[in-house]
């Protein structure tokens, strides 16, 4: 005894239950029952509608399909595979899969879910049911799997998958068969018990085999005497081989005694703690309809393809219970039961206490639909106007969960989620007893439903935000790590290079050697200063400046002639430029020499040095000019081939060159604009342009700067004009490419190419636009 978990029912409690002791729950109400209208007539077959709509989506998850549109299906054929904890859905009659699409679900939201639409053939041919061997020989795991594959969910109203309830079979002491059916109007379970008592007991045998409880209680409200009688008769007739004790318990009629937690309290006197599951008390509860379905699945091998639905309400001429195929449109049933439709006909799915209304009849019956109520206005009048809470406390008296509905109402209205949690809103079973007794006609349950949905959303969002936070953090960490790794790699590579260099030079560090040399030189010159004139280093510097100037001048000369209007006599111009550069260099060297002439007597070395420098400058200028010439000869060739195209290419390149050195080596080919060797020309022109710019800015104080500036201005203007043109071209290219992409006839490869081209063109256009700014 002491080794048992404290929550489990004890042997004494079980003994008390079997001895006939009953408890009751807090509150509860007595709404008008209205069961006689439908309880008198036998269950009939609702027939086969033209179309069956079977919803296969559950909580946003769609299982894998086993059928496709156009497939013939037979009754009982599985439409979906097992997906997680979801049950399999079956075709409920034979026919052809007409469509697999989103159809309105039997849900208060009226939102569509993915459904299989079957066009029935009226033959109702079923698959060959494969009758299993004696279930008593099968392990419970196999039976639970069979139940999942048979698509059985709780038929009492919530639709909780039955195999999940049954899979927690450890330490189950008590199995309660819920046949209370406390909701007004509904008589589906009542009729089922009257007509199928034996099958129900067979189902109980299966459940007993799976769960191995010590006690089984069938709980029936005392307003169903015929059902109790039928059960007792069947029990006498059958020779059940149950190890557990079986009791048929008649409980007083009190709404909501059919609610799981309330019924447990009535039968056992124990309250299920908040947030705990009845299995933790050693209790499993199954609806009597579910038990019947379990029998069909396990004993007969038939999956759940139909359920008993109560059709009632004064707006229906015929009333009663029908065995309805899952997926039958409600309108079909209303027609069959001769709905005398009034204006603004109300349709309630489920009972009047807990059900929800639907706006039209084009919604299919699902496994959880136990009643379709079509009341007249006299029967269920339109709700009276809501008034303020007078704090009478009736709701708190009526609440079967012992909650404080007033407080919950206030906090629901003020959306105070913390307070709602303090007052255990989650324990509310939405039975509607509080709203039923409210003298101010406050639809309390609706407020709670809204608040529950809001809390749920807030929780989901908080969860999502937390996930996002963690993912962002991980990403940041990853990027940081990547950066560190990269730096380490670069450092390593640099070290390696250094090492290699060292090895190449016979273990001598060139840089260190160079530094040492430089130092030595400095020291030398410092020492030399004592004996020589201070002009020596100065003159060397002057020579260097002259060299640089000569070079720049040469470049400037060369570049100033590299405009788009370049003609075939370029080489000549370049030669002239080179000559000018040489002349300048010479002049500079001469000037240098002149400046040095006063010190020539003292140091004969200096003029020589300057001459050497000048010679170097000349050589360099020549070289630069030659390079220039080379690059321009390309353009010249281009010009001869197609002057216009080359000019375009050059202009494009100029635009590029504005980005200066950074863009010099970029691949700036413009495939649409310059088809014949445009890349080379563009690159060459870009280099030329960059050089020209550099030279121009460097030569700003040179006498010939006005010409250069003018040339630059001109080029700038041309480039600007051309950029606009280019942008237009690019935009057109984008448009064309998109058009091409949209062209359905073009092949996939072309599509892709065009898209890439469009993307490139777009990026370029964007870049150009940025440059313009």
């Amino acid at each position, binding site marked *: 005894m002491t080794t048992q978990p404290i929550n489990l029912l004890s042997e004494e409690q079980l003994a008390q239950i079997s001895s006939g002791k009953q408890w009751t729950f807090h509150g509860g109400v*007595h*709404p*008008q029952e209205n069961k006689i209208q439908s309880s008198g007539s036998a269950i009939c077959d609702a027939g086969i509608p033209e179309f069956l709509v079977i919803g296969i989506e559950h*909580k*946003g998850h769609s299982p894998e399909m086993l059928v496709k549109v156009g497939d013939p299906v037979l009754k009982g054929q599985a439409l979906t595979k097992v997906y997680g904890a979801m049950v399999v859905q079956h075709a409920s009659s034979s026919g052809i899969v007409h469509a697999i699409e989103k159809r309105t*679900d039997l*849900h*208060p*939201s009226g*939102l569509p*879910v993915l459904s299989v639409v079957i066009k029935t053939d009226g033959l109702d041919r079923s698959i060959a049911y494969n009758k299993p061997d004696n279930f008593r020989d099968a392990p419970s795991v196999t039976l639970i799997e069979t139940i999942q594959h048979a698509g059985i969910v709780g038929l009492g109203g919530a639709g909780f998958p039955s195999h999940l309830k049954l899979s927690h079979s450890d330490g189950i002491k008590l199995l309660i068969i819920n046949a209370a059916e406390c909701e*007004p109007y509904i008589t589906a379970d009542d009729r089922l018990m009257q007509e199928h008592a034996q099958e129900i007991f067979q189902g109980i045998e299966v459940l007993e085999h799976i769960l191995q409880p010590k006690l089984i209680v069938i709980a029936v409200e005392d307003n169903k005497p015929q059902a109790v009688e039928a059960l007792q008769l069947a029990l006498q007739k059958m020779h059940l081989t149950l190890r557990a004790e079986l009791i048929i318990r008649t409980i007083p009629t009190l709404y909501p005694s059919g609610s799981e937690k309330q019924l447990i309290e009535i039968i056992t006197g124990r309250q299920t703690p908040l947030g705990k599951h009845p299995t933790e008390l050693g209790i499993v509860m199954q609806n009597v309809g579910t038990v019947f379905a379990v029998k069909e699945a396990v004993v007969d091998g038939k999956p759940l393809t139909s359920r008993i639905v109560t059709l009632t309400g004064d707006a229906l001429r015929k009333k009663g219970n029908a065995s309805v195929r899952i997926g039958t449109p409600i309108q079909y049933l209303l027609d069959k039961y001769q709905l005398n439709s009034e204006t603004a006909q*109300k349709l*309630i799915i489920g009972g*009047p*206490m807990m*059900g*929800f*209304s639907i706006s039209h009849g084009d919604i299919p019956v699902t496994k959880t639909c136990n009643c379709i109520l079509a009341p007249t206005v006299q*029967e*269920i*009048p*339109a*709700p*009276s106007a809501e008034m303020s809470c007078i704090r009478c406390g009736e709701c708190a008296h009526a609440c079967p969960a012992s909650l404080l509905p007033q407080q919950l109402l206030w906090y629901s209205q003020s959306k105070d989620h913390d307070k709602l949690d303090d007052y255990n809103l989650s324990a509310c079973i939405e039975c*509607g007893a509080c*709203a*039923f007794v409210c003298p101010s006609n406050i*639809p309390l*349950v*609706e*407020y709670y*439903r*809204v608040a*529950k*949905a*809001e809390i749920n*959303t807030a929780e*989901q*969002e908080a969860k*999502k*935000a*937390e*996930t*996002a*936070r963690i*993912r*962002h*953090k*991980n*990403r*940041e960490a990853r990027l940081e790590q990547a950066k560190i790794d990269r730096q380490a790699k670069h450092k390593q590579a640099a070290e390696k290079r250094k090492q290699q260099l060292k090895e190449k030079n016979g273990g001598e560090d060139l840089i260190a050697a160079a530094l040492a040399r430089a130092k030595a030189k400095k020291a030398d010159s410092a020492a030399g200063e004592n004996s020589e004139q201070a002009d020596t280093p100065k003159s060397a510097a002057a020579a260097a400046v002259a060299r640089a100037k000569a070079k720049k001048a040469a470049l400037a000369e060369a570049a100033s002639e590299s405009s788009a209007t370049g003609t075939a006599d370029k080489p000549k111009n370049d030669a002239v430029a080179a000559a000018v550069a040489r002349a300048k260099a010479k002049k500079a060297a001469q000037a240098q020499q002149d400046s040095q002439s006063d010190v020539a007597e003292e140091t004969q070395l200096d003029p020589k040095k300057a001459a050497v420098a000048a010679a170097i400058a000349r050589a360099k200028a020549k070289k630069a000019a030659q390079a220039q010439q080379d690059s321009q000869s390309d353009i010249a060739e281009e010009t001869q081939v197609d002057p216009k195209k080359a000019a375009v290419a050059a202009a494009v390149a100029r635009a590029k060159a504005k980005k200066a050195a950074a863009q010099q080596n970029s691949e700036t080919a413009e495939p649409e604009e310059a088809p014949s060797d445009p890349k080379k020309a563009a690159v060459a022109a870009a280099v030329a342009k960059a050089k020209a710019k550099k030279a121009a800015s460097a030569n700003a104080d040179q006498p010939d700067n006005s010409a250069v500036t003018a040339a630059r201005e001109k080029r700038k203007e041309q480039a600007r004009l051309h950029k606009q043109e280019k942008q237009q071209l690019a935009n057109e290219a984008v448009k064309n490419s998109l058009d091409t*992409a949209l062209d359905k006839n073009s092949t996939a490869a072309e599509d*892709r190419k065009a*898209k890439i081209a*469009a*993307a*490139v063109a*777009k*990026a370029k256009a964007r870049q150009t636009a940025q440059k313009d700014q």
Partner: protein
Amino acid sequence: MIISIAIAILTLGILGALFGSLLGYSSIRFKVKEDPIVEELDAILPQTQCGQCGYPGCKPYAQAIANGEEINKCPPGGQAVMLQLAERMGIEPQALDGEEKPKLVAFIREDQCIGCTKCIQACPVDAIIGSTRQMHTVISDECTGCELCVAPCPTDCIDMNPIALTTQNWQWDLNRIPTKINTEL
């Protein structure tokens, strides 16, 4: 006289040293490494990491708020977050700087994706998968709707869609059904 003064000085000196060392020890022993308010503010923020506040993520903005930044710079969080921040910081609520928009989720029109990976690099929560020249796709459950992937896309193939209404996120409205029926009384 002198003795009593000496005793007073000595006593106060000892007390001072005692409490000083106690405080010094506590400041080391109970040192709070990070300002806990930053964590709290970060928890309030919606974690879209969208940068609309001008900071590179929600945490930096939380840090900035703790240092006196305005609390109205989070349009994804909207009025609700602003009010929570105001309450936590103990300051007056401010009018939201920006427009509150419904929650969005990114969607890549996959036939137009050229596989450039630009959106993958932009996504602050790694909610886009794909590789070079392969089609990319958004993990919609992880997408925060920050829109940072939209601008870099060279083919403009990313849409920001409102989150679809399903039976999971549907909210009850007060189109109530009758819960009052004729009683026996």
